[in-house]
């Protein structure tokens, strides 16, 4: 396996800021999907991205761990700094970035392998653990994801036999096992029922002391329930081309966004009169 030089995060006075994003523009070919987004993400907080469909919140999220690299036509402009390091610097190893900034997806996507292998996969690839340590890593990750008691007797069974909610918690465990610094969640509950959703939300509160979490959600109540800070995105329609571009309207404490937002558009959205 290829060992990569780790990016040493600069721990300065700004150490509570994980991401510092300035003038982020994302293009898919000629089409501008996101315009001029600037924001900071704090450590050990849950930040929610909300907004109507097509507002670019998922696109922005995927810029934070260079997941957009895999979309052929995607182009990112602006600065995305992670602990002071420019993530789009040509010298950065994007796999190492994704190891530190993990991701949980909209649809639970366990590998068609055993529960154990799912959780162990990323940790094994990192090459940081011996065989016996891997067992420990898997158990700890499953415990942290509140799944251990349900699966400890069938670690060798296929992950596809789990329920949707269990699968999503498995995906969170798989992410945790790599010991990331940040977890990006792209509508992690949109495919789950309310009970499974509640479990994931509880889980997020449990793990936020260890990780910084950014969650994209369509569900405003969820954002209000789980997050410390909320970013509201919306779409602006270009009158000439009739195409929609996502813009960040504001980012503030969740309480403020939902009670007295600075921008009228935010108020219209959170009160359900728009979007």
């Amino acid at each position, binding site marked *: 396996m*290829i060992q990569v030089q780790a990016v040493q995060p600069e721990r300065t006075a700004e150490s509570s800021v994980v991401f510092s994003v300035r003038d982020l523009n994302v293009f898919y070919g000629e089409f501008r999907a996101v315009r001029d987004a600037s924001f900071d993400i704090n450590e050990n907080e849950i930040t929610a991205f909300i907004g109507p469909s097509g507002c670019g919140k998922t696109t922005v999220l995927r810029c934070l*761990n260079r*997941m957009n690299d*895999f979309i*052929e036509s995607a182009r990112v402009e602006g600065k995305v700094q992670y602990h002071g390091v420019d993530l789009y610097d040509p010298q950065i190893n994007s*796999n*190492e*970035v*994704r*190891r*530190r900034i*993990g*991701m*949980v*997806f909209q*649809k639970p*996507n*366990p*590998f*068609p*392998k055993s529960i154990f292998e799912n959780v162990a*996969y*990323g940790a094994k*690839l*990192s090459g940081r653990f011996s065989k016996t340590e891997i067992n420990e890593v898997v158990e700890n990750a499953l415990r942290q994801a509140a799944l251990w008691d349900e699966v400890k007797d069938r670690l060798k069974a*296929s*992950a*596809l*036999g789990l329920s949707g909610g269990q699968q999503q918690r498995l*995906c969170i465990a*798989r*992410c945790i*096992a*790599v010991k990331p610094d940040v977890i990006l969640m792209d509508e992690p509950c949109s495919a789950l029922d309310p009970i499974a959703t509640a479990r994931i939300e509880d889980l997020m509160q449990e793990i936020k002391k260890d990780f910084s979490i950014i969650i994209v959600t369509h569900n405003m109540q969820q954002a209000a329930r789980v997050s410390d800070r909320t970013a509201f995105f919306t779409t602006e329609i270009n009158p000439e081309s009739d195409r929609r571009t996502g813009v960040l309207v504001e980012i503030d404490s969740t309480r403020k966004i939902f009670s007295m937002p600075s921008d009228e558009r935010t108020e219209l959205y959170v009160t359900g009169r728009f979007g």
Partner: protein
Amino acid sequence: MSTVELSPTDLRNREKSRGSLVLGFGLLVAVTFTLLSLFVLLARIFTQAIPAFRERGTDFITDTIGSEPGISGIWPGLFGSFGIGVGVLLLAVPLGLAAAIYLEEYAKPTRFNRFVIVNIRNLAGVPAVIYGVLGLIIFVGWLRPITNGGSVIAAALTLSVLVLPVIIITGMEAIRSVPTGIREAGYGVGATRWEVTRDHVVPYAMPGILTGTVLALSRALGEAAPLIMIGAITGLLPETSLTGKFTAIPMLIYNWSGRPDSAGGAIGWSNSAAAAGLVLLVLVIAFNLTGVLLRQKFEKKRVGT
């Protein structure tokens, strides 16, 4: 009282309309025709082949080619066909799979790459004889120092080139059908493109890849035309060596079918040809079966039972 007005014909079963009856009958005819021709073919081969096996027993498999059907066997042909099969497995399958992986996972969708893919598709439709000409020029001619002319190695190389497009196309389709979520899951924990391909994409695509392999192998084992072009021998006593003169079962079938049955012997050449055909059939079915069993193993893993 219900306000819905319903005439008795509204809920009529349209399955019984004349159009669908005619269509159903037409489909039945098509299936019957297909099965019937297969049955006639198999029955014919069996009835023709049985006298040969009764007369020769296992000698038919282990004897070399003789001047009379009564003393002739197919051993050199079996050796040649087996060599070709192994050659295709070792050469065309890894090469085709690698090409499929490159084209699906690595190559950017440039105009040139699209052109390459279209041409690979076209190559799958090129007649086998043309590949024979290619094999004659390249593998028998230019690469004579390696192949020693028209040998099993030259045949395996020629047929590998022949089946490559099939393996590449089925491989690409199998790889394309792997859900994006699986790839993203791998990337999400920091895996590289190669790690994701090796650990998740290829295992998930394995059933489709195996289907392509089985198709390719069956085709390679059944071809006679390219072997004629590169000079497979049809006379007596070809050697059983990788670099010497060789033959293969389709060659024997082709050659023996054309010979007149002499009045004297207990069996004629046509019986030997049918028996050789039966052996080839068994060989191909055995390969297919292995492929199907392997495929099931991978498919089970994919759905998690």
